[in-house]
């Protein structure tokens, strides 16, 4: 695919790696915020190719992983209702709630459907006027505009049987929370490029200055990741801490004004709980007052459901780089990819799931794995 394949070129990757090697003189801990970037890193083995001094901490940017258990339980409750067609992105189906997942709801007769786009769910609502169609609206600032547009369309077209179960989360408050925690090891961030395609880069210079960390807006292909790392390491070695855009082909400073305007209309900022981490103030969106009638939580009266996350799970500490996955007492026993407790074991790219695979392989640990946790 044009503008995709070129950014996977092994020869150019080697050049970027050489440049990183020639720049780095001491250990640095970088966090890639986004789950999509973690996916690229694992999929291409980038973590093994970096010089030993560069440690990547896999951040909390997988929307599937951080969707709180409580919201999953609400989704399961709604999806199990006979009058409901519950639509979701594919990767949410396997995420376990307290006692089941969406696959199991389906096996008990629930009508759970995988869609590619929220607009597909809206189409299903149009085709099934006598049933309630609920879309599981998860995701970061990248996915929020499509979901916002879909709710907007539902109102414009007068489709009353459509609603959204919302669990949107925002990146900057998460970065702020991570940096503000007292034992934070993260020295720089690779910011999520596609979030910035929507939101722009305006929120980052202040964060970079306040916490004295380089924040480099980074794309998703292997060369993009390496370039993000290269620029981050360069800043760290020079003692700089600025916002830098290493993904200019998809990110402008102002982001996407039309999408931001729609977000401001359809959603309002709210506190959100992140699975495995806890509540982060002002870190999410819910439907604004104007669109409250499209809120599935209200429509199906599931606001009352509250769930405590398993006490054994320490994925929050893993996500922040405090501990390595195998240092959690539940790792590999109570918590496996088959029956994950927390965010980092849920997704195959989660730090715990990736660790689980490589442990089975019995390879010599990568430098990141071998390095002692400070």
């Amino acid at each position, binding site marked *: *695919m044009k503008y*995709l394949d070129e950014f*996977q070129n*092994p020869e150019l*990757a*080697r050049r970027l790696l050489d440049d990183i090697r020639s720049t780095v003189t001491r250990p640095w801990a970088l966090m890639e915020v986004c789950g999509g970037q973690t*996916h690229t890193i694992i*999929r*291409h*083995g980038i*973590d*093994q*190719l970096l010089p030993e001094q560069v440690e990547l901490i896999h951040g909390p940017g997988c*929307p*599937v992983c951080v969707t709180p258990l409580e919201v999953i339980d609400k989704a399961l409750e709604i999806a199990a209702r006979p009058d409901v067609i519950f639509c979701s*992105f*594919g*990767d949410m*189906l*396997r995420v376990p709630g307290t006692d089941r997942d969406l*696959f*199991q709801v389906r*096996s*008990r007769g629930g009508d759970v*459907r*995988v869609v590619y786009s929220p607009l*597909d769910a809206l189409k299903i609502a149009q085709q099934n006027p006598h049933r309630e169609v609920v879309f599981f609206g998860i*995701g970061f600032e990248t*996915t929020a505009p499509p979901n916002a547009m879909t709710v907007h369309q539902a109102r414009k077209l007068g489709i009353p049987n459509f609603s959204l179960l919302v669990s949107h989360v925002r990146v900057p408050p998460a970065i702020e929370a*991570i940096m*503000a925690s*007292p*034992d934070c090891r993260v020295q720089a961030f690779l910011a999520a490029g596609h979030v910035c395609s929507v939101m722009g880069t305006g929120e980052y210079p202040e964060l970079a200055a306040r916490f004295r960390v380089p924040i480099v807006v980074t794309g998703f292909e*292997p060369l993009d990741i390496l370039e993000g790392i290269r620029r981050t390491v360069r800043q760290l070695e020079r003692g700089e801490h600025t916002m830098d855009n290493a993904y200019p082909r998809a990110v402008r400073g102002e982001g996407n004004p039309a999408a931001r305007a729609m977000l401001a209309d359809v959603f309002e900022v709210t506190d959100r709980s992140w699975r495995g*981490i*806890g*509540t*982060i103030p002002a870190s999410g969106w819910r439907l604004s007052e104007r669109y409250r009638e499209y809120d599935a939580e209200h429509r199906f009266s599931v606001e009352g459901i509250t769930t405590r*996350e398993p*006490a054994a*799970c*320490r994925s*929050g*500490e893993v996500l*922040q780089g405090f*501990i390595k996955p*195998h240092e959690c*007492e539940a*790792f*590999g026993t109570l918590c*496996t*990819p*088959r*029956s994950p407790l927390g965010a980092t074991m849920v997704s195959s790219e989660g730090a715990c799931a990736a660790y689980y*695979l*490589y*442990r*089975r*392989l*019995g390879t010599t640990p990568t430098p990141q794995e071998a390095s002692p946790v400070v």
Partner: protein
Amino acid sequence: MSDTLHPAPGGSSRGGPTPADRGLPTVDISGWTCPAPLRDQPRVVMGHGGGGALSAELVQQIFAPAFGGEILAQLGDSAAVSLGGVRLAFSTDSYVVRPLFFPGGCIGDLAVNGTVNDLAMSGAKAAYLSCGFILEEGVEMPVVAGVADAMGAAARAAGVEVATGDTKVVEAGHGDGVYLNTAGIGLIPAGVDLRPQRVVPGDVVIVSGDIGLHGVAIMSVREGLEFGVEIESDCAALGGLVEAMLAVTPDLHVLRDPTRGGLAAALCEIATASCTGIVIQERAIPVPPAVANACAILGLDPMYVANEGKLVAFVPRDHADAVLEAMRAHPLGAGAAIIGEAVATHPGMVVAGTPLGGTRVVDLPLGEQLPRIC
């Protein structure tokens, strides 16, 4: 705001003291094996039919113990049985595909070719098939005729006779129009013994051509995912190709047709059953651009996408070049390529070298592949 996160590493707000603090043993990673809980699904979920880990568990935990018998324990796509002094390959497979007609084929030719291929993976040329129709009340007669015609044409092309059959009808709403079951038998030539247990380190891994075509063709017409793509299912009978390979040497070690779960599942099963490691090079795997791009959009890995006219072969190193040449001379093996080898290290595991020069573990998929958003 920091105190809404874990306040400190090591002892968290929810996790309490670390295991070490409480005098409990920490997880010993060395020599640790997969402790995945067994039978933790109270009901059948779609993944049990996905050809991945869930399917394998169903067979190993319920079917194999219930049926007993040494032949079933081999868990091959077809069984090699001796009867009256001759060695027969014997196989059955059921077909539940939606939609019934898809680019490049339909459930009818799929049902013939699938069973012919299962027999071919034992080295046998299919001789006779049985055919069971499970029809849904209300399905249009031309649909049934279309499926039957396709079966007849596929059988003639594969040189196999549909010798016996059965028809049942279920109430409307209890089936997807047409379900098919086919069983087949064929003779295994003298000197041919294809089993994963025969794989030894040094064996060369060959795939017969482009992967992922069938799965992508099906997905392109699946509700909720629809996309336009000019590729067709690779559905084809592989008996002739296998014959051509065996003509080079009867001493092939194992053949597998990578259907559900794709190349990854086939390799993982062979690695597990043979107790050898497998190393493949991703760059060497033939993936058509349209498959790669469809997978890029949906967030899938081509290695996990289903094929219906491909095989993967483990061939003794001395014969590899000649077998490859014979495959390439056959129309169904024109795109054959060496993709890796069996190794003595990491027994039971499949490891892929990435184009960038890193490595990743290729794991058995859990259930069906789902589009992801992150």
